[in-house]
């Protein structure tokens, strides 16, 4: 095995060890007392109907509370399309 590949393997194994070690500390799936579900999620669930008048609070979070996120997601998709166009397109003869 080449030394560079061996180095890459060791790096991957060490990183995997730390990632697995970190997973143990994470809260359980669907734990209602986890920080992710006690910080802003109750606010969204309780107030999104009054704030945005959208019946589905997933779209209220997606498009209203986090509108910047979705705006630049759209921009990223647009840029990806432009990059594909630049890479794949033939030049005019």
């Amino acid at each position: 095995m080449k030394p560079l590949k061996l180095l890459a393997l060791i790096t991957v194994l060490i990183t995997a060890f730390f990632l697995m070690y970190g997973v143990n500390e994470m809260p359980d799936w669907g734990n209602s007392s986890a920080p992710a579900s006690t910080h802003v999620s109750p606010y969204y669930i309780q107030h999104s109907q009054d704030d945005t008048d959208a019946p589905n609070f997933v779209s209220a979070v997606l498009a209203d509370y986090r509108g910047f996120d979705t705006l630049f997601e759209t921009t990223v998709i647009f840029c990806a399309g432009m990059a594909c166009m630049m890479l794949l397109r033939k030049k005019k003869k």
Partner: protein
Amino acid sequence: MTNRYENLIIEFFCRVIAPVVLLFGVYIVFHGEASPGGGFQGGVILGSGYIMLAIAYGIDFTLKRIRERIILFLSGFGVFIYGGIGAACLLWHGNFLDYGKLPLPLAHTNAIRGLGIMGIEIGVGLTVMGVMVSIYYDLIVAGGNQKENKGEVCDGILSR
């Protein structure tokens, strides 16, 4: 289109199902505010309905219907709609993407917020549809279209 009915079953199936797919895509885009779905998913369905037609009938047939320039225009115009709605809120003394400040004749500002969400979903749907179809065109054209493969003289799709 010399071999008009080369794949009769595939062409008939696509002809029957294409309006349903396109209508379902529009439904997903417009109903994304109230139910699971939205601009991204609806745009993908719209784009895939169009790609299905392009697979069944050939790229030349579908390029007559919607030219590539229009597809690229739509993909940029979707981002413009999204950013434009956000910037329009600035004109009426709101924050960026603060839809409630838009001067629409509705009873209360929350209904306007709902309409603003639907407006940006339309923008996202247009962008995703345009990018999907544009990538498909680029892949097809990079491999050479049908006339080039048969050895006939063809300028290529892009020079039209």
